[in-house]
């Protein structure tokens, strides 16, 4: 649905130039919710803006539903933007116009007139649960409600794609959950493809089907969450399951095991300890609801002598397990 193909973008010239996007390629499939995570300054905001051409890449192409967005200008671009909604961190509502006027603006941009426009705006507001606030001004609403108006406005022209620029970053945790659930529900009901950017892993965990991790203008990892969480060494998975930094334990190896779709009912670890008559210490564990399934990760300290046996036994049961290299103590100090 959205294909970002070898896109690069730099700001400024010469030695001061900042490479915001460095040969980025991302594929978002129809109907999925795709999250791009990264620190601020990683380039994700620039990336998102290339999808509706608020930002033009220096090279590479962006295609949305078969239309090459990067080649469009003027009326054709506006036409394409009607099919791509966008919500913003700070909502960007016009403060001295009413809630329904803000939503109607989106329909005016498409050319819907009069009563029909008013009717559809109210319909959108009902959809986000704010039909009763149509005549209020944004200042009279809470942050969560304002973002609902932002969503209603973005979806009023019945787009196929929704772009979300840190839509929940200015909201408290509870409101964040409500807004994310709303986006998820609407994406299902309206068949939307959602591309969102965030610096919060919780957002990815709660609603994303796929994710990409960006760092310094590059995508360092991307894929379906269900696959990433069982990929040894995945950075996204490591962020999703916070089991702590690995520490070196003399005479032991560190093994991570991940179970998607909790087969964890089975006493896997106790079983291992009995079978091999070894002492296993659990260094950390995390169970999370990721992409709609209960998934977990456990970090074990396994005596060096039994590491290979343990890994083989785990894999035989269909559990993803791998050895984690603990950094040297010295190296750790340097990074700290």
């Amino acid at each position, binding site marked *: 649905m959205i294909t970002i193909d070898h896109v690069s973008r730099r700001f400024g010239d010469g030695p001061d130039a900042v490479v915001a996007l460095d040969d980025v390629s991302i594929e978002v499939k129809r109907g999925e919710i795709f999250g791009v995570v990264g620190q601020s300054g990683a380039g994700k905001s620039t990336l998102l803006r290339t999808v509706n051409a608020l930002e033009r890449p220096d090279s590479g192409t962006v295609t949305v539903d078969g239309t090459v967005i990067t080649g469009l*200008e003027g009326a054709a671009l506006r036409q394409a933007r009607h099919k791509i909604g966008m919500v*913003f961190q700070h909502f960007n509502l016009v403060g001295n116009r009413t809630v329904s006027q803000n939503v109607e603006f989106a329909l005016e941009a498409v050319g819907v007139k009069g009563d029909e426009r008013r009717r559809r705006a109210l319909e959108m507001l009902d959809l986000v649960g704010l039909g009763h606030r149509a005549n209020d001004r944004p200042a009279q609403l809470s942050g969560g409600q304002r973002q609902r108006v932002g969503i209603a406005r973005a979806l009023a022209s019945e787009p196929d794609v929704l772009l979300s620029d840190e839509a929940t970053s200015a909201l408290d945790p509870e409101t964040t959950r409500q807004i994310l659930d709303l986006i998820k529900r609407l994406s299902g009901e309206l068949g939307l493809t959602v591309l969102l950017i965030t610096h919060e892993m919780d957002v990815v965990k709660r609603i994303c089907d796929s994710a990409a991790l960006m760092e310094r203008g590059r995508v360092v990892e991307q894929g379906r969450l269900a696959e990433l969480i069982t990929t040894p060494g995945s950075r996204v998975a490591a962020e999703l399951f916070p089991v702590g930094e690995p520490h070196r334990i003399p005479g032991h190896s560190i093994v991570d095991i991940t179970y998607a779709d909790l087969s964890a009912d089975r006493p896997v670890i106790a079983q291992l300890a009995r079978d091999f008559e070894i002492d296993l210490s659990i260094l950390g564990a995390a169970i999370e609801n990721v992409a709609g399934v209960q998934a977990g990760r456990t970090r074990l300290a396994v005596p060096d002598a039994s590491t290979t046996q343990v890994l083989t036994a785990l894999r035989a049961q269909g559990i993803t397990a791998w050895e984690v290299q603990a950094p040297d103590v010295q190296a750790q100090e340097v990074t700290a």
Partner: protein
Amino acid sequence: MIDPAAPEFWPQLFAVLLEGTWETLYMTAIAMAITFIVGLPLGIVLVGTEPGRFLQAPLGQRWLGRAINAVLGFVVNLGRSVPFIVLMIALIPFTRWLLGSFIGTGPAIVPLTLVAIPFFVRVVEIAVREVDAGLFEAAESLGASRWLIVRRVLLPQAWPAIALGTATTVTSIINFSAMVGVVGGGGLGNVALTYGMQRYSALHIVFVVIILFVIVQVVQWLLTRLARRLSGATPAASRAARRTERAALDLDDASIVTAPAPREPARGDTDSPTR
């Protein structure tokens, strides 16, 4: 020297003041109306044609945007830096060409308008510049045309500041109108000049000052009220907003946390990577 004790003094004074007030209001109103009609679009274009703004490439031509911006900025600065008295005299041939005469209250409107336009363009410029860039971005993301963005986003947001700036502009037009006696224009300034200065009537000056003060007060009061209305801060609305805020705090539904997460720069990601 005029004798205030003379029986015809007061009726004459009021007749003179009435005429002067009427002429001042007439010159100011027409000059302001023309200034508004010409200055508003020019101010919008002046900001819009800056790089990165919504009019940076009119007709798809970036050079055209840059050229318009440069010329407009130059003309506005030129207009603002010429003293009014010089402008007035320099414009005499132009006024004569335009209206057939350069003497009198009507022709005096020409220099008044031309001095007010650059001033008002700056007023509009500041008002438009204050509009949150995020709003333009949102409007663009919705595929709105430039004209629609101007009507539905830019103007609604800029009106309050433009209304306040209009009050300032009116005040300075009234100010300058006191000088048009030089080209035979009337108005309260002329009353002060001919009766107050040349014929030593302090009373005339006192009344002129009072009337001018009242006019400026009324204009300022009206436009301040208008600005408040336009900003959406009707008494009912601001009360409701306060209620909502209190309720939000009480119910711990305050959705905007006090320390919002660091915002990514809207354009560019120019801050250095944190890792």
